[in-house]
């Protein structure tokens, strides 16, 4: 994927988020170096999506800060696209009353929006559905459209929220290849371990909002704390 300026570095510093009595994120720090593929994993309710919502500006941290290229940064959802940050949603979240092409065009830059949207659909192998309405299409196709919509603005940081959910093994294989080939920084929240282990350079493990491990896939798979979080305390 072409990028006009150097990739940006995104970092979270000691982020804590409390919703009433619940601590959704507890002192989480993460540096996403340019061009790296960083996975965020953890059991359900670990705070993975909250982490994404912090970066997108949907949720404000109770304490802690974010930086973009070292500069203090307060994210706002509708500025992300301009800053080169794109995010897919867990649900597919497509506009039901629009065609697939129009859905993708919303995220494109205004000039040449249609051509860029077609190119993104092409890239995700779903160009032939351009004129269809997404509601009528199978889930796996809609997932690909969602990816095309995230890729259309040529993001420098791509945030994928459970992109493999509901996909079969072949689709996940295709997805892994696409993620590795984007050439952008990728932040990946995912339950599918094989995908995470095969594409990520680095993995952050959250458990009840607390960061319990950070390292390469090999380090993470051998970390006893991670096994414990996923499988319960060893007997």
């Amino acid at each position, binding site marked *: 994927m072409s990028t006009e300026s150097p990739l940006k570095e995104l970092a979270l510093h000691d982020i804590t988020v409390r919703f009433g009595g619940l601590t959704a994120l507890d002192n989480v720090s993460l540096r996403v170096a340019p061009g790296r593929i960083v996975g965020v994993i953890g059991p359900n309710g670990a705070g993975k999506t909250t982490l994404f919502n912090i970066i*997108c500006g*949907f949720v404000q941290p109770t304490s802690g800060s974010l930086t973009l290229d070292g500069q203090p940064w307060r994210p706002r*959802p*509708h*500025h*992300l*696209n*301009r800053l080169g940050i*794109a*995010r897919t*949603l867990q649900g597919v*979240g*497509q*506009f*039901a*009353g*629009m065609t697939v092409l*129009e859905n993708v*065009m*919303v*995220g494109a830059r*205004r000039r040449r*929006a249609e051509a860029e949207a077609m190119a993104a659909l092409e890239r995700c192998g779903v160009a032939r559905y351009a004129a269809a*309405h997404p509601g009528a299409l199978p889930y796996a196709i809609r997932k690909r459209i969602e990816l095309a*919509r995230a890729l259309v*603005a040529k993001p420098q940081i791509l945030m994928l929220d459970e992109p493999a959910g509901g996909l079969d093994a072949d689709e996940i294989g295709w997805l892994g290849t696409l993620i590795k080939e984007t050439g952008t920084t990728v932040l990946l929240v995912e339950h599918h371990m094989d995908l995470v282990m095969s594409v990520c350079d680095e993995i952050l493990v959250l458990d009840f909002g607390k960061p319990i491990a950070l390292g390469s896939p090999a380090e993470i798979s051998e970390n006893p704390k991670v096994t414990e979080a996923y499988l319960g305390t060893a007997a």
Partner: protein
Amino acid sequence: MSQFIYLTFDGLSRGLVYAAFALALVLIWRAARIVNFAQGAMAVAAVYVAYSVTNATGSYWLGFVVALLAGMVLGVTVERVVMRFVDHSSPLNGVVVALGLVLILQGTLGILYGNEYLPVETPFSRDAFEVGGVAMLSRYDLFVIGAVGTVVVALTLLFTRTAVGLRMRAAAFAPDVSRLLGVSVGGMLTLGWALAAAAGSLAGMLVVPTELGLHPTAMDVVFVSAFAAAVVGGLDSPIGAVVGGLVVGLLLSYVSGYIDVTVTPMAVLALLVVVLLGKPGGLFSSSKARVA
């Protein structure tokens, strides 16, 4: 037969005014999920501005243009200053605030201009052309058709052919997803209110001269008919608003011509009951597919 032809043309001409006004209601409903009960009072305020400008300058057209601009400014102001802060947890909140706006606007206009009906001129003759002794359309009817037709075509092009229109639709469908895609949802909302208020003001400019004259409550009855038109068409559908407007216009024209003008409110109610019993979402409801 000649009466039928006359009533049909008269109904279409009135129906187009209802269509423009219903479009205003639909635009705001789609963008903000608010039925703008203040639309009538806002439109009247714009017509008063036109009245002042025309009286001061002698130019109907200057007043006409200023009315549309004033309508836009009022729409933006109402959205930015009032509606943006309404708690949307209950749909009634927006309705109550809108009704409050009606009282404020009508009260202010009454204080400024008085509560008498002021005569308003039309730019073209309202005498109908006769073809073979049958009264057809007037020049003014043609002006109404041209003006509303222009608005409908312009809005259709905006929503289906432009990036801004696409973003406005996206923002109305799913605000959070749109934000992630870089759409300024607040900006689109303001733009929606501006366009809607301009369409409402146009309807006011077209209809007030054909009624009793200019009065703070001059649009109240029009509001009821246009609201019925929007509901009949399906509050979500711009095409429904146009079709609903024409249906209501024709119905009112036939009922007042063949039965009695006093029966027309009953006729609108009956139409609402029949349509809503058969298709609760309106004729062009979005439950299956949205248009534009």
